[in-house]
């Protein structure tokens, strides 16, 4: 039942329907396009809003040892998942070292919008993830960049100076700063401070997400139509990795003792692949890698697969794992 519900909610939610509209519009080669400044602004808005909401939730619920454990788990997953991805990309995917490392970094890191869409769908199913999961989201953004670079370049390569500069840029990239900053603001402001700004950050949220996903649908579909680098092997990996990583995540989340919504959320985080923070970091740190590869895989294949199929799947597994009593914890 929960599975059917999650899938049904996926395909009647305006949020997902706008994503599909974007895909279709690009496939029929319509000139529909969201101005880039606006799209960028919407992505910042979504991060600020999700960050604050998470902080407010933790301000209400208080800290617990679960939070510390799941933060650690997130850190570990982000750092370790690139290693298996790298092996598959080099072996089955036939990529060279540099490109395999660059792509692997994307799959260890996370996609904020995939997570946000999952929280909407989980919310509709009555099992929203806990607020602290936003901190996990932020924690999972960057470790994968480090392991991806290690895999691509080995440990020695860069001069110490360049390396520390690079680390600074990775750890202080826009999305990490905004997510964590808003999270802390939510913590400090608490429910009463948040209520002042909730008409903007809470009420408007799903509508902005609709327009942003419309744009992501357009960009994802146009990219796959223009790509020159994709092979069937890589396409298969771009679907296989989120499937496997999602299952690992949901199992780990359940094992840690997360509630069913948070376990599903953790699964989605592991399944998702970055297409905002990591590509920019790779342009800087691994300019020799082909952006046609990593952007097309993460944005044009994995992202739609996660939105349209995998979130529903992961939710069903989380519900099944939680057992009959799990849904109303």
């Amino acid at each position, binding site marked *: 039942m929960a599975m059917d519900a999650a899938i049904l909610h996926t395909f009647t939610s305006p949020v997902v329907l706008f994503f599909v509209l974007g895909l279709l519009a690009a496939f029929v080669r319509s000139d529909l*396009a969201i101005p*880039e*400044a606006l*799209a*960028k602004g919407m*992505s910042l808005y979504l991060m600020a809003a999700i960050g604050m909401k998470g902080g407010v939730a933790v301000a209400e619920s208080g800290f617990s040892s679960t939070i510390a454990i799941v933060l650690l788990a997130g850190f570990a997953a982000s750092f370790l998942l690139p290693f298996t991805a790298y092996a598959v990309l080099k072996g089955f995917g036939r990529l060279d070292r540099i490109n395999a490392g660059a792509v692997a970094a994307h799959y260890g890191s996370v996609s904020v919008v995939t997570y946000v869409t999952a929280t909407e769908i989980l919310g509709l199913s009555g099992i929203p993830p806990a607020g602290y999961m936003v901190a996990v989201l932020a924690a999972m953004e960057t470790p994968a960049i480090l392991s991806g670079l290690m895999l691509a370049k080995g440990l020695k390569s860069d001069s110490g100076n360049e390396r520390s500069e690079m680390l600074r840029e990775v750890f202080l990239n826009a999305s990490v700063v905004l997510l964590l900053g808003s999270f802390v603001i939510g913590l400090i402001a608490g429910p009463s401070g948040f209520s002042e700004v909730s008409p903007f950050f809470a009420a408007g949220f799903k509508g902005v997400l609709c327009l942003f996903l419309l*744009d992501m649908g*357009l*960009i994802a579909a*146009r990219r796959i139509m*223009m*790509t*020159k*680098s994709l092979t069937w092997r890589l396409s298969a990996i771009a679907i296989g990795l989120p499937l496997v990583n999602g299952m690992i995540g949901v199992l780990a989340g359940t094992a840690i003792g997360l509630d069913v919504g948070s376990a599903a959320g953790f699964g989605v985080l592991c399944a998702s692949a970055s*297409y*905002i*923070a990591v*590509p*920019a*970091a790779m*342009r*800087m740190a691994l*300019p*020799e890698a*082909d*952006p*046609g590869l990593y*952007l097309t895989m993460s*944005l044009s294949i994995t992202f739609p697969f996660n939105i349209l199929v995998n979130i529903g799947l992961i939710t069903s597994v989380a519900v099944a794992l939680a057992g009959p009593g799990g849904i109303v914890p």
Partner: protein
Amino acid sequence: MIETVIRKRIEILADTPLVRRVTDAIDRASITGWTVLPVQSGSGREGAWREERVLGTDKSLILTIASQDKAAVLAESLAPILSSHSLLLTMWDVEVIRGERF
């Protein structure tokens, strides 16, 4: 007639995340300044791109005016990474007024 002198104008197309690296090179060549223009879309050997600002992988155009000597220094310092970093560099002679600035 107003007096003009000849300087080099250098324009470099680069991924936006690499702009800092290019402008640092310009500063190191002790050129007096630079200006960055936005770019919308493009196509090259690696395929076409557009709408990548939200992904952070769009491109920018950096333009700088310098004396022949400093321009050569800059070109020399960027040459090694032109290919690996997909930079596109063109330069040509232009007339400027009050050329002592550059």
